[in-house]
């Protein structure tokens, strides 16, 4: 059995070891970036830095989001926006929404998750298309599915549903079985499947 350490011809820097050792070093690299960033932008911009299931999550204030992302892209090597989505915490109370960005660093071979808490009365996040151009469809999806306004987006139209569609389907109060003409917000889901 040839136990081959991966990443031979891929990047310049090579990591020794494999399996769990390698896995922890991926977290370590993300953590280094997160803590380095925290020293630059300060406590008020990054309210929390969590490590869970080998993943590093930064809770970022909405006002500091664009600065944090451009710093991560320019100074910390997170060149690619992998994913952007949102989560609706209806039952938990305000702030109701969390907008989640997943970043990938090709040079450091690690990932980072950025989360922004958004209240339902003030549901907007700044557009990050000028930092990551591929954010545009993701942001349109967040607007379409969750109704979180993207401030500064040039083409903020619905993307998966149609223009006349009422409501935002991935909100927790949007009914699962919805028919045109029915209300788009329901009190309690009646869906005891099991």
């Amino acid at each position: 059995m040839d136990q081959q350490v991966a990443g031979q011809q891929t990047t310049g820097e090579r990591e020794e070891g494999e399996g769990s050792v390698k896995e922890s070093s991926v977290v370590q690299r993300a953590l280094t970036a997160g803590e380095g960033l925290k020293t630059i932008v300060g406590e008020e911009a990054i309210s929390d830095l969590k490590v869970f299931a080998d993943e590093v999550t930064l809770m970022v204030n909405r006002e500091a989001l664009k600065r944090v992302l451009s710093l991560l892209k320019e100074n910390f090597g997170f060149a690619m926006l992998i994913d952007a989505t949102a989560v609706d915490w209806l039952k938990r109370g305000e702030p109701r929404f969390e907008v989640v960005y997943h970043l990938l660093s090709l040079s450091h071979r690690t990932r980072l998750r950025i989360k922004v808490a958004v209240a339902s009365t003030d549901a907007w996040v700044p557009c990050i298309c000028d930092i990551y151009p591929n954010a545009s469809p993701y942001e349109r999806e967040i607007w379409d599915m969750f109704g979180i306004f993207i401030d500064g987006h040039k083409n903020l139209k619905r993307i998966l549903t149609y223009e006349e569609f009422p409501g935002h389907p991935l909100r927790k109060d949007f009914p699962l079985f919805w028919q045109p003409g029915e209300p788009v917000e329901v009190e309690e889901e009646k869906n005891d499947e099991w």
Partner: protein
Amino acid sequence: MSQQTTETTLTLNMGPQHPSTHGVLRLILTLEGETVLDIQPVIGYLHTGIEKEAETKTYHKVITLNDRLDYVSGMTNNFAFCLAVEKLLGIEVPLRGQYLRVLITELQRIASHLVWLGTTALDIGIMSAFFYAFREREKILDLFEALCGARLTYSYFVVGGVRYDLPEGWTESCRNFLRDFSAAWVELDELISRNPIWLSRTKGIGILPSDAAIACGVTGPSLRASGVPWDLRKTLPYSSYNHFQFDIPVETDGDTFARYWVRMREMQESAKICHQVLNNLPPGPVMADHPWATPPPKELLDKDMEAVIRHFLFYSRGYPVPPGEAYAAVEGARGEVGFYIVSDGSEKPYRMHMRSPSFIHVFALPVAARGHLVADLVAILASFDTVLGEVDR
């Protein structure tokens, strides 16, 4: 194009029902003569709300929804979903299960690339390649059918491992396939790679430079065709991919031909991995034994009351997953397939989001296709291998 014609730009609607879009995709083209000035993709025609539906089903049932997203390579979607849930539960898959996952995913990659090759060649006008490619793909589907009974929506991967061990004689049929495939690969190569029509339709067409590819978020073979050696199997290895020796094909041209050639060579590398798995397949269980998140062994059901209870709870109420969030990604046939799962501690995912590579590739299309002819747009769109099922989710 001369300066006089700049006033006469034309807006043309391509799709949603168009044979070259491989699904239901609408492109609003701005043309000057036959040159594409701008493209505006309009998606959503296949939106099925699977992410919403997943919130109302138990984790075990969600597996059956995932493979419907990217219906050309369902195994990869199941793989990424299971990895994400395993991260939350802290399950370590036994080595045999990990190796089987690698084997099946690599076969799935070959099958998916063959579908891509056949349909792209058909778009460009080589109809015979379609038949050769689909003949080989059919053999892989037969292997999958023998393995799990399904040909397209497998649900073979489950949280904790894979559903069944290999049936009797399967290893032999797989070896036979791999032997036939290496000959078929040469056949396809001879048929296509030096075909003058193919070369003139693909060489220098739809160039995506490496910096634009990274800025657009392009992943997978399309990124490697632009000269970026990024493959999650090597760079962020999962599920014992670091036990196998294989190369990452990289091309630097970034054109349609490079994307074709990367995929062709990837099929060879996948076959290489399959050989290594078959030669080194360790004995042992294929599924982890978790106290509640995996079904009990079948042979215990008529002996042990506790096992019956566990079986009943597993299949009816489902299993609770500790609260938290996890993102797991695998290198799919099209690019990075990722699942982001948020759990609130119940039996159903609080939020499941799929990071689908095609979704972002559709929006990278304008960058690659600007300035080309409408006829080339068909080839460029095909070269990104978009599957509309996972674009619209």
